[in-house]
């Protein structure tokens, strides 16, 4: 019997597989097609203080082994997420919920996190300082050590739940940002968000995406994500949720060997809605193949 359990700041996950925010809605679409209680946890769609329509369409472009999105934080606003989406999810899902929060100013992050902190059904708060698709917000807070630390500090002052800060890979030195948020009190770090990218429709001579640029994700980014998880896990004491290009059970184990305690699956959910379930089902055989009895034994085993 293989042991897939991991522990994220006291929150027990049956397995390390977590659908990444923005690639699983609020969980209900997939609950219609399989039992989502097989998941380790769910990171729900990024939430802001006010409802947002998001960016104009087209929002999606395809790449070799990946894709670019510029959704722009479409969500019904924190109050609706708390009043409607989380209770609906709770009706069909008993496992941990990670609330992903974004903002356009420190006060907005504080307000959203403060509200999420009071929701019993939320186990972990994931603070997104890395959305590349909105102006004057999101990634602006994740590309400077001072701003990332300030968001973390202010949010931690109003929360009692574990706070994971989700970092952007679009920085010169990921380790300095990670250390800054750890020093500011982050209980954990999620990385990576998407890489800023672009495609051009050469026949029409214009960007494929209406907002011109967007976040690049999918299998192609896996080595970049793995490298950053490795660097941050070795530089910080807090647990890391690894994210970026994960598509197989083998990828999950590789991320964990690099230092991830849990592993998020993002873009793969868009091409295969059953991806998380299939990965979880494949994990025991892959552990057997590699001589692993307990997944928590391999976290950060590669130095």
């Amino acid at each position, binding site marked *: 019997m293989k042991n897939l359990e991991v522990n994220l700041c006291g929150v027990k996950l049956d397995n390390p597989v977590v659908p990444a925010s923005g*690639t699983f809605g609020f969980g209900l*679409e997939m609950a219609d097609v399989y039992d989502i209680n097989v998941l380790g946890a769910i990171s729900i*769609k990024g939430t802001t203080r006010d409802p947002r329509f998001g960016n104009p*369409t087209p929002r*999606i472009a395809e790449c070799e082994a990946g894709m670019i999105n510029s959704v722009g934080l479409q969500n019904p606003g924190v109050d609706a997420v708390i009043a409607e989406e989380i209770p609906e999810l709770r009706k069909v899902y008993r496992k941990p919920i990670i609330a992903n929060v974004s903002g356009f100013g420190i006060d907005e992050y504080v307000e959203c996190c403060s509200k999420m902190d009071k929701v019993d059904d939320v186990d972990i708060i994931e603070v997104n300082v890395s959305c590349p698709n909105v102006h004057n917000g999101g990634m602006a807070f994740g590309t400077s050590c001072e701003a990332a630390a300030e968001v973390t500090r202010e949010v931690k002052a109003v929360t009692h739940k574990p706070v994971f800060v989700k970092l952007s890979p679009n920085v010169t030195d990921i380790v300095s940002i990670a250390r800054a948020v750890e020093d500011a009190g982050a209980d954990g770090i999620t990385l990576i968000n998407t890489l800023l990218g672009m495609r051009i429709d050469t026949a029409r001579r214009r960007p494929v995406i209406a907002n011109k640029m967007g976040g690049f994700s999918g299998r192609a980014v896996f080595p970049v994500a793995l490298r950053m998880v490795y660097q941050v896990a070795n530089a910080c004491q807090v647990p890391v949720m690894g994210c970026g290009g994960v598509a197989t059970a083998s990828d999950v184990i590789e991320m964990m060997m690099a230092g991830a305690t849990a592993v998020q699956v993002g873009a793969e959910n868009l*091409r295969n809605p059953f991806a998380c379930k299939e990965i979880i089902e494949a994990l025991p055989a892959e552990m057997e193949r590699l001589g692993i009895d307990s997944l928590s034994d391999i976290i950060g085993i590669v130095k």
Partner: protein
Amino acid sequence: MKKQTLKIESNRMVVDKVWEMKLSGCDDVQKPGQFVNIALEGKFLRRPISVNDWKDGVLTLLYKVVGRGTAQMAEMKAGECLDVLTGLGNGFDLSVNCAKPVLIGGGIGVAPLYLLAKELLAKGVKPSVILGFNTASEVILKDEFEALGLQTLVTTVDGSCGIKGFVTNALPELEYDYFYTCGPMPMLRALAPAVTSKGQLSLEERMGCGTGICMGCTCKTLLGAKRVCKDGPVFTLDEIAL
């Protein structure tokens, strides 16, 4: 929604750039107007294609070769298998009370109207049909709709077949008390002020997942932001903001 492995029974060009693929083994179509999402070797995202017909487990897709993915589909041969997500989208609502609906299609948008016509006939409702194209060589499904015994008007922009002009030029020729339509956005925008009844429109948008989880294909409606893939692709004229 199901993930099914479907076998290609046939794959043939109907007119220039428009192909018909028949796939066997599909048990998952609830309504006309739904679509399937096809995984292709070497392509990261699936290709959403509307259901043209479905009978005895055989799914018929009419698709236009517009990019690398559809070009790859056109090269596939009978006997090959495809990984397909089926039963996607809300489909047309056939519960509406109407005696004489008109089905209005533009270009490849005529495809989903065929199964719709068959299902309406099965309910005892006999629709009329308007099919719009740029030119005579693009005309598809005219014979198939006529074989169902339906009055079928064709319009072409250059006048090389049927009525010269757009689908809106054919509207005054028919009496109707409801409409169902699918076609490019400029056609839908022209149609909305021209129709004299209520009706349903099937929208097209570049999609990420096709299952409602990524918010990639959102459109504005009077009821707020809606996902074309999950809340649509069919919306009523009353709710949609064109």
